[in-house]
């Protein structure tokens, strides 16, 4: 069943709009940051999984872990590269995270 389906796809060609469109003006916790965390982090970093004893389900927890999140999602040396289930966050998501941190990590 599986062997009839061989494709030569790449994400750049398959998702062209997503790669070009990055909203860097309306970056909010509820509208931007939480969806990123929910998609890529909360699978492990929420009760009951609590990967690495780090929780990211509430605003306060995210603010408390913000420096480590920055290092991990940028996969800087000295930090655990995250998400560990493969790949790296899209550069747009990392840019939006930086903007949110620079704007004072507001709970908006």
């Amino acid at each position, binding site marked *: 069943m599986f062997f009839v389906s061989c*494709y*030569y796809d*790449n994400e750049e060609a*398959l*998702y062209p709009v997503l790669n070009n469109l990055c909203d860097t003006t309306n970056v909010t916790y509820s509208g931007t940051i939480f969806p990123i965390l929910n998609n*890529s982090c909360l699978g492990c970093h929420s009760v009951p999984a609590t990967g690495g004893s780090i929780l990211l389900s509430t605003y306060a927890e995210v603010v408390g872990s913000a420096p480590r999140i920055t290092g991990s999602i940028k996969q800087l040396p000295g930090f655990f590269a995250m998400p560990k*289930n493969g790949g790296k966050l899209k550069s747009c998501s990392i840019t939006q995270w930086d903007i949110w941190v620079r704007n004072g990590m507001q709970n908006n």
Partner: protein
Amino acid sequence: MRRLSLTFLLALITLGIFAQDDLMNIVNQSTPNEINYTTATFKSTRVMNGHSIERMQTGQLDVRISHRFETLNSGGYNFFGLDISYIHLGLEYGITNWLMIGVGRTEIDKTFDGFAKFSILRQSTGAKEMPVSVSAVTSVALKTLKFPDQNPTNYFTSRLAYVAQILVARKISEGFSVQLTPSYVHRNLVATELDPNDIFALGAGARLKLSKRVSLNGEYYYIANPKTYLSQQVYNPLSVGFDIETGGHVFQLFFTNSRGAIEKQFIGETTGSWKKGDIHFGFNISRVFTLKKHLKSSNY
């Protein structure tokens, strides 16, 4: 009554002795014409990460639990990587003496995998001389990690990757075995145009017996595709470690620069470098259960 039963018993014993003589004769006569298949080229069905020439015997179930921890260079605060582990669970079964199948689940990318290993040639001496054992492995990996965005071009096929391997192994002496593994990996979806959908690699593995229960194993895969200019720099996976056999279990303890335990991941997605110290401690535990007694003991 007692005499009768005694006579009967004596008769049985005599018969038994005669039968044994007959069997010994048959064994002695047939020895020169027998094919002596080489056994235990490797201890386990894996060299370290990758498949070895060994298969499960008919009716035997192998329950495998594998861990790869984080890198040694992640520091003492993270207990040199042991704080975080990547787990692979596997159930593998010998259907016939030439075919085994297996299914597994890896934490990385929430991947399910299935494989089949076919025996093609067996190393033997005696009536049939065969210098090497040859097997073929095909496997499929299904990534079940959620797509990051809802999108009409999120195809199911994007989740699949296929692997085909030929295993050529030779037990050179009682304590030393080698294996070459030409491998092909196809990924339906890769990150960028620069990443290859097809990967060609040549694996090499070896086993050196140190004692009756312990052996030193090494495994290396040379990837023929360019490894730079990709969305992520990848490296050739190298693993070195020990097989330790205890009663009923085989423990494989090793150091590797790969965090994936299945072919698609350690051939295509090894981002760690030995030179930089991205070395993962890892282990496989294998426990074999006999579900069906096999009639012939000649298979290995």
